[in-house]
């Protein structure tokens, strides 16, 4: 809702008229003949695009899952802790 219609048109007259003329000129241009297989080619490419996106999404999920599994294993197994030594060093000098 425009309460001030005169404020919405900053520069009435010449530029507007020129623009309207250009608009009419563009609208009057002939429509170029559309290649007949345009829709089919766009469709095929769109399908390929979708398939690629799906593949990328799945790979991303797989990677995330692997990361979670690795973290869980690391937290549980704590591989940085050295294993308890099984052998006692020989005691001498008794």
């Amino acid at each position, binding site marked *: 809702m425009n309460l001030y219609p005169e404020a919405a048109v900053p520069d009435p007259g010449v*530029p507007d008229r*020129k*623009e309207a*003329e*250009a*608009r009419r*000129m*563009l*609208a009057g*241009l*002939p*429509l*170029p003949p*559309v*290649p007949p297989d*345009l*829709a089919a*080619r*766009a*469709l095929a*490419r*769109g*399908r*390929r*695009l*979708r398939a690629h*996106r799906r593949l990328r999404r799945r790979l991303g999920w797989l990677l995330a899952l692997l990361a979670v599994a690795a973290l869980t294993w690391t937290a549980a197994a704590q591989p940085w802790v050295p294993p308890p030594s099984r052998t006692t060093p020989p005691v001498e000098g008794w």
Partner: protein
Amino acid sequence: MRERRPVQQRRHAREFESFVAGAAGRLFRAATLLTGEPAAHPAPAAEELLIHALARTYADWDRLRGEDPYERTRRELADRFARTARRHRRPRGGPLDRLTPQERLVLVLRLHEGVAEEQTAAQLGLPAERIRALCRHAVAALRSHRPVRRVRGGGAP
């Protein structure tokens, strides 16, 4: 779910094809104006541009959420053209040959497609004043160019 997918895909493909049948003429003219190719000849650059935009629209067909597919395709078209504008600097004999790619883009969005100034500015990431200046300049260049192609149907040789 597995069974329903092909059915849904076929329906989307049908919807997409009828959309293209209705909108392709106008979109293709916009694309040829952008690339600067004359309408009477084959326009491979405009074709590539439009097919790219249409393919992206189709890829998101089930996620348009009420957005008009025409507007979506126009947005894709403009975005792609803005990214690849350098390829379209060379004149090709079309009616907007005298303009720079950016001027052509603004002119097509504002006057051919009738997109509002603010919306054009938001889409291209430019201030509205810049859009107005570009549009004014493009219109002036078009008018100075016009006498050459006043004859209807008489394109470039």
